[in-house]
């Protein structure tokens, strides 16, 4: 009798692992804005994170990946709608605000959970309560940057550069204007300028930079969207202190490396993931073990998304469906053991409460300054 009881207990424990998963999780991406190398970096991290949570075999069974290659700007919609058509119960991935905004519309329409890695566009907070991002909001991005500038460049004249072809950058323009009117930012002397259609500075602003009218410049878009600007600044020998938004700290960018390599003046960057922090050590070690190299920020964002995806699946009691996953997510919107430690989401969808740090580039690499 005791033997049968023990056998029943063992079988009961093994049953969930022995049965084939009857649901699917979707991970999607497109190369519309973020290139395939960076997309692959997010997926590597996600794969590591979700396998940590659900195990290799289960992930093989339940994870459906749909990466749409090509130049179509609607690639994210195609990827997301194809995943929904396949019956996934939740959608993850779609790095970059452009793709995540498009995919979020599909998820919202299909009423499935959608979580994007590190996207900050304010629009993601307005889609609905099924759409989330591990990134912070643009409001927080801008206010943290203004706080940084108040601390390091108070009363100095600076130039915030907006890229009108990048939706996250463009969305920051109004937020900057709005927050600069706040009395707390009165001691900031900031001009905002849009790049022209060639994604370069207009001549008059370039002349001002050459004359030394500005003490620093701020980048708001992804480094890959600022190649022309970077070349323009270099060819005009403009070397000013640079403060880059978290977009620069989200991806592993060679454009950023090339830009920084020629600079003598300081380069600061907003970042959520800080290499070497205690919460990130386990990730960095396991990543290197699995892939044979040190992780980059996109790997870390992918990993955290994988932990979130695995955690929410594990939190579902009973049958996993789109509704139960959504319910489990809403029931507990905080997630642990991430590279950034703990991450919580708001009640009505949208951004996480990820902490924003500022890193300064030194000979040893990026080091936190704030």
């Amino acid at each position, binding site marked *: 009798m005791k033997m049968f009881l023990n056998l029943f207990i063992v079988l009961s424990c093994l049953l969930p692992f022995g049965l084939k998963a009857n649901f699917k999780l979707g991970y999607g991406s497109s190369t*519309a804005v973020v290139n395939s190398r960076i997309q692959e970096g997010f997926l590597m991290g996600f794969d590591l994170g979700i396998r940590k949570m659900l195990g290799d075999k289960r992930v093989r069974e339940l994870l459906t990946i749909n990466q749409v290659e090509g130049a*179509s*700007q*609607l690639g*994210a*919609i*195609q990827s997301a*709608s*194809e995943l929904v*058509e396949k019956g996934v119960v939740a959608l993850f991935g779609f790095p970059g*605000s*452009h793709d995540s*905004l*498009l995919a979020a*519309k*599909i998820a919202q*329409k299909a009423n499935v959970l959608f979580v994007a890695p590190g996207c900050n*566009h304010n*629009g993601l907070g307005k889609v609905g309560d099924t759409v989330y991002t591990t990134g912070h909001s643009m409001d927080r991005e801008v206010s943290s940057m203004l706080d940084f500038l108040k601390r390091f460049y108070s009363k100095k004249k600076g130039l915030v550069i907006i890229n*009108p*072809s990048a*939706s996250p950058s*463009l*969305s920051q323009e109004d937020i900057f204007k709005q927050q600069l009117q706040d009395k707390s930012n009165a001691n900031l002397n900031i001009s905002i300028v849009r790049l022209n*259609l060639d994604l370069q500075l207009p001549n008059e602003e370039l002349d001002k930079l050459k004359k030394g009218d500005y003490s620093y410049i701020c980048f708001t878009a992804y480094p890959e969207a600022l190649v022309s600007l970077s070349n323009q600044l270099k060819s005009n020998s403009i070397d000013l202190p640079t403060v880059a938004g978290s977009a620069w700290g989200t991806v592993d960018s060679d454009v950023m490396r090339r830009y920084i390599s020629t600079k003598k003046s300081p380069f600061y960057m907003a970042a959520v993931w800080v290499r070497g922090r205690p919460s990130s050590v386990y990730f960095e070690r396991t990543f290197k073990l699995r892939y044979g190299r040190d992780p980059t920020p996109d790997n870390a964002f992918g990993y955290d998304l994988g932990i979130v995806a695995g955690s929410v699946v594990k939190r579902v009691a009973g049958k996993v469906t789109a509704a139960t996953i959504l319910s489990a997510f809403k029931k507990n919107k905080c997630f642990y053991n991430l590279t950034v430690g703990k991450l919580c989401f708001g009640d009505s969808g949208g951004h996480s409460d990820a902490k924003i740090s500022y890193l300064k580039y030194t000979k040893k690499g990026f080091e936190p300054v704030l």
Partner: protein
Amino acid sequence: MKTFIKGYFGSKYILLRHLVYTQIVVIIAGSFCIFLAYQYVSRSVYKVSLSRARSLAEGEILLRQDKWRAWDLVGLNEFVNVELNDFKDKMGLEYIKVIPVSDIPIALLPEDIVVPNLQLKSKMPVFNVVFAKLDTSRLISTQVPNKEFLTILFLCALLFLGVIIYSASYVVRKIHQPIHGLGMAFEALEKSGSFETGKIKASGEMKDFIQAVDKIYKRSIESERTLALGHIATQVAHDIRSPLAALAVVTGSLQNLPDDARKLICEATGRIRTIANDLLNYSKKGELVESEVLDLQNYILEIVQEKKLEWKNRTKTKIIFTECPSRIQHPTKVLKNIGRIVSNVLNNAIESIQHDNGLVTIGVNSLANGYEIFISDNGCGIPDSLIRVLGEVQVKSNKEGDAGSGVALYYAKKYMISIGGDLNIKSSLGKGSRVSLFLKAKELS
């Protein structure tokens, strides 16, 4: 228009008026057809241009629409608008915008609206579409056919108008005016009794027609005259009988006269009786029932002798009878009417001589199938223009002191033909004439 045309052509010329109406209708209908053709070609050219512009715009939009639609969805409206404005100017569009799919008009889209096909391989939901309208004002210029087409169309219209005008003018000149002239001639005939067709300008079949009408008219006049002659003949025959009876009584008591004179009077009286009998027969039966003679040569010789006596005062004019050089198988009978014709022709020949050395020769020649009685003179001759019509119609000769109508010659020719023979005239102006009467042998028997 109708009043104007009626006023212009008067109420008489119904056919001409109808012709003008028809032509006006044809010109209007032709112009309308040309206008329709112009419209059709214009519309076709416009449709082709529109279709091309539409295909071009659609293709270009298809290449770019994903970006614009995505940017619209992620809130890059301003940047989308900049690109759309550039694209609009480049492609010649009236407007182009990205609109929510729910804003597409339900009604059938006009052909200048471009909404690229959104059917994709996967079941991608469609949130928005690119909606463009072609700037048709740019295409309107293509609605006008090219200059070459317009030139050809204009030339065709001119040619068409020219044909219409020429045909109208042709009908007026060649048909209406001759018919109208003929009508006027008939009107004049009714009013004044003269029928003049010489002034009518006509050609071709119309000329033949008018000439035929003229000929018929003249024949009818001759018929009337012949009828009158019939009446006169009756009267003359009747009136001659009493004097002839008196002459017959007197002839018996003419022994004192020379033989020649007595014989001449007897023969002349006999011939007058014969003429009177013929005239009576003609008036009763409508044709001459002729007496017959037994010997042609003797018969002709008698006439010659009679003429010599009749014209004995013309001492300077010789009348010679030449006998037939070959032996003539004399017919037993010959129609006596021929004698009258010979007598007339001899008179004409003598009368035509106006100089001193006049010579009239008469004789009989034997032919293969008949005989020729010839009378030649060295008189004034007959003009060529008269010779052509002599015997065909009644004409005036150049006889001295005579205003004859040529009726005798006309009837002589008519008679000769009626009995299977013929009458020929050869003449040289100023030199003389030769008249030949041809008799077929069977008519002589």
